[in-house]
């Protein structure tokens, strides 16, 4: 459903991605784990069209989107929840969610999607008039995810949803990710928290300094010595 072939990305002379390939099948949760600076965020930013691919191919539903502008990727159903949530701080929760439906003009459908988002994140419903910048980190993560859901994604890209959150909240967020996936959305999850990510993912890729070094079933990777040593604290 979503494929990356031999993707290279450069920032000036620095090679951020040295040719990575990965694949996410319909209905899967795939996780991309790795240390800080390994190239996880670059992978997602390039997938969404915020960075330019130097070489390689990005394919969504069989269509080559490597050079497509960001908004057309969103239109095709590739939606990202960026690292650090990036909610619009000076807009209300409701306005943030409405912006998530920017490309969707069917008002009745949008209202229905909004109800579903509020069902999934009741706390957002309580705070709908509040400015997004005044929300706690966990609430902002929920808002960023809710905003992405307003876009009715086919493939949801999540960049470090656990970042900076208390363990209990991380659990909550991850169970919501699983629920979103079970409701039919394909998920590519980028995480430093390998432990949690491997628990909910079907398959996983491990990235190190711009190269995929390992891949396989999430449960098998969680048991492998290399992953245990490098990412799961022994």
């Amino acid at each position, binding site marked *: 459903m979503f494929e990356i072939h031999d993707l290279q990305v450069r920032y000036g002379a620095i090679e951020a991605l040295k040719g990575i390939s990965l694949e996410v099948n319909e209905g899967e949760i795939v996780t991309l784990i790795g240390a800080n600076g390994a190239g996880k965020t670059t992978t997602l930013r390039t997938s969404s069209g915020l960075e330019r691919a130097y070489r390689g191919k990005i394919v969504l539903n069989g269509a080559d989107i490597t050079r497509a502008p960001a908004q057309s990727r*969103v239109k095709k159903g590739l939606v990202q929840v960026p690292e650090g949530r990036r909610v*619009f701080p000076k807009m209300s929760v409701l306005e943030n969610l409405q*912006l998530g439906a920017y*490309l969707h003009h069917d008002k009745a459908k949008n209202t229905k999607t909004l109800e579903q988002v509020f069902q999934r994140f009741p706390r957002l419903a309580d705070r709908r008039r509040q400015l997004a910048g005044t929300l706690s980190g966990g609430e902002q993560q929920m808002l960023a995810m809710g905003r992405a859901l307003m876009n009715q994604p086919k493939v949801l890209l999540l960049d470090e949803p656990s970042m900076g959150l208390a363990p209990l909240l991380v659990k909550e967020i991850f169970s919501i990710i699983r629920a979103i996936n079970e409701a039919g959305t394909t998920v590519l999850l980028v995480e430093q928290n390998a432990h949690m990510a491997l628990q909910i993912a079907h398959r996983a890729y491990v990235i190190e300094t711009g190269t995929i070094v390992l891949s396989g079933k999430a449960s098998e990777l969680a048991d492998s010595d290399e992953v245990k040593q490098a990412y799961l604290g022994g």
Partner: protein
Amino acid sequence: MEQLIQQLINGLALGSIYALIALGYTMIYGIIQLINFAHGDIFMVGAFVGYAGMTTLRLNFFASLALAIITCLLLGVLIERVAYKPLRKQTRLAVLITAIGMSFLLEYTMMYFVGPDPRAYPALPDFMRATIKITDNIVITGAQILILAVSITLMIALQLIVRYTRIGKAMRAVSQDPDAARLQGINVDTTISFTFAIGSALAGAAGVLVGVYYNSINPLMGILPGLKAFVAAVLGGIGIIPGALLGGFLIGGVETLVAGYGFSSWKDAVVFAILILILILKPSGLLGKNVKEKV
């Protein structure tokens, strides 16, 4: 006391013009962090288009105003596309210098066509020249009422667009976080174009109003009001729309008061003294929050 009230009325009219120009400065800064130094010259072009509308084309005041607004709207979009968009990924300084160059280009292109001498603005129809006497010493002119009415209408329209329309929300989103806006499917380039369109349209309207108010226009008339409107935008907090309104009215008020009490030759100096003071005391402006620079 009566003189004070009279000066405040005059200040309100002048201030609303500054506010219209300052709104464009602040919106454009808000969305691409550019002080568009050509903005004052778009205002000048507006004044001349309005003049041409009322003289050469024999249109009435409102049709000429509309013509100036539309021309400046298109000019603003064109300038952004041709001069600023290719520099989107360059340093802010490069764009700033381009804006200064664009400013000279507009000034001297206009001078080439109309000559450097000032022209008298066409007289308004009688009903707009009527004056209302409140007391013997307090007089409101028809032109002042017209200026206030036009500017306030445009300001309300702007607020409605920015608050409630789809493109208005996109503008706010892009100004707060362009990358996050892209991830919602917002076309950032279109949104920036739209911002230039609205800001330049307001400047065009202000140009016609200044022509009506001061009765005289020339190709360099945009420089000083442009700079003062820039001071107004900084005073209110650059990038903040209500701040531009507040700053515009304050600068207009201060300027007329200083002039009205016999210090006419000091009125410009006082405005720029305000700029220096605000930059020392509260660089983020009256309505701005002090944000620490992220490193």
